[in-house]
């Protein structure tokens, strides 16, 4: 199949891009990395009248931390920039853990972090990390900017809270009160496959005590599963074997997997439990060594 006809704009500023979206009254689509949108155009799952390519807009490829510890990821930060970032490697284990597991190395040179969150694929890896980390999306429209909490950003499969004339300009992740720990594990049948099941875990820790635990799952439900409530059994506690087992159980209960060609529902739930245990045990060991 070939994409149906569309008009193409490559604006040089955000304001210009937003004005085009606004004038198109919902018939235009933003093009970022194109690694989901172009395949959808080819399959004609999407046939917008206009494509607004944001790749030429300067000032959108930053990964930086504000003085108060807030992490900011611009709309044109590619998956491979996430993978190569020394900052993430050092201080954001949940993001660093996912970076090399998204798609394949060639898709990663183009696809963007923010675009992936906007695509809202129930199997997308980055949306899961964002929910676990308590992230927000900064949306800019004709009337300025607003921040949307990740927990209310994804409305359903491939549907977000963005208005037709808004662009997601940045992802924002709040800093930890203590030390940020975490991890990301994904079971895939081969490189480049979407998740059979994946687990994002985030812990904000002071010493051996968990201030806040965050968790989200991909591939095991009709949408990204928000397992923050489930893993909150760890809040205020230490990572003992008993607490880890309780958390893994609670998170596995929150999964809503379906049997398909990637595996049975039971199998996927089992993977979730194993992954949560594995990530938490790994963190507990590191803490013990440090103590």
């Amino acid at each position, binding site marked *: 199949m*070939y994409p149906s006809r569309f008009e193409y704009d490559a604006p040089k500023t955000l304001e210009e891009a937003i004005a085009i979206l606004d004038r198109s009254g919902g018939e235009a689509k933003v093009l970022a990395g194109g690694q989901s949108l*172009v395949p959808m155009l080819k399959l004609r799952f999407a046939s917008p009248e206009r494509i607004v390519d944001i790749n030429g807009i300067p000032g959108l490829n930053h990964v930086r931390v504000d003085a108060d510890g807030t992490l900011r990821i611009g709309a044109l930060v590619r998956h491979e920039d996430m993978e190569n970032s020394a900052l993430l490697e050092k201080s954001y284990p949940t993001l660093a853990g996912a970076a090399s597991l998204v798609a394949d190395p060639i898709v990663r040179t183009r696809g963007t972090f923010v675009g992936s969150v906007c695509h809202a694929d129930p199997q997308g890896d980055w949306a899961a990390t964002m929910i676990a980390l308590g992230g927000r999306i900064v949306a800019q429209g004709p009337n300025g900017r607003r921040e949307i909490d990740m927990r209310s950003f994804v409305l359903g499969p491939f549907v977000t809270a963005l208005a037709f004339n808004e662009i997601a300009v940045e992802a924002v992740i709040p800093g930890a009160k203590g030390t940020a720990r975490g991890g990301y594990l994904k079971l895939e049948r081969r490189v480049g496959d979407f998740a059979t099941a994946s687990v994002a875990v985030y812990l904000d820790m002071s010493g051996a005590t968990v201030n806040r635990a965050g968790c989200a799952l991909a591939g095991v439900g009709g949408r990204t599963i928000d397992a923050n409530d489930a893993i909150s059994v760890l809040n205020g506690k230490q990572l003992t074997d008993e607490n880890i087992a309780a958390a893994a159980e609670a998170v596995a209960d929150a999964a809503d997997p379906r049997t398909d060609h990637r595996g049975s529902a039971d199998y996927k739930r089992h993977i979730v439990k194993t992954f949560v245990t594995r990530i938490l045990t790994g963190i507990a060991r590191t803490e013990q060594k440090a103590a």
Partner: protein
Amino acid sequence: MTSLYEEVTQVPDGVPTRRVTITVNGQKRTVDVEPRLLLAHLIRQGLKLTGTHTGCDTTNCGACTVLFDGRPIKSCTMLAVQADGHKVETVEGMGTASELHPIQEGFKEEHGLQCGFCTPGMMLAAKALLEKNPNPTEDEVRWALSGNLCRCTGYQNIVKAVLWAADKMRDQQA
């Protein structure tokens, strides 16, 4: 029968096209394209550089890999208009039959191809790797090529070919 490319390039009156200038293998090429034309098809049918293959057309196989400003991309998943003002390198830019690029030599020496369909994509992905990491481990080579599928070789000799080329390129530098 009209080809996909002809369908997309025989633009009826009133359908807007865009003039784009792309530096392909060091040469500036200016063409008028419909926005929906895929870069892979511009390269193959428009510019007649048929070394770039399209295998799956679904962003999975990497046969269509080219270098875009030096980084590997799947050209079946980029619009030709997006390449306006950018540099594209295809396998034709790597070497000539009489003067092979060390990576091409490596594929020859180590028997890194059978049918050859995946080879251009493999070589460009390998080139991007070696530019960033001139002394990769076997694991790093496998990892860098994991977005490129080969249905013939079992990958073993492709990995050897890239390691062979890495050695040769380091020797040339020294």
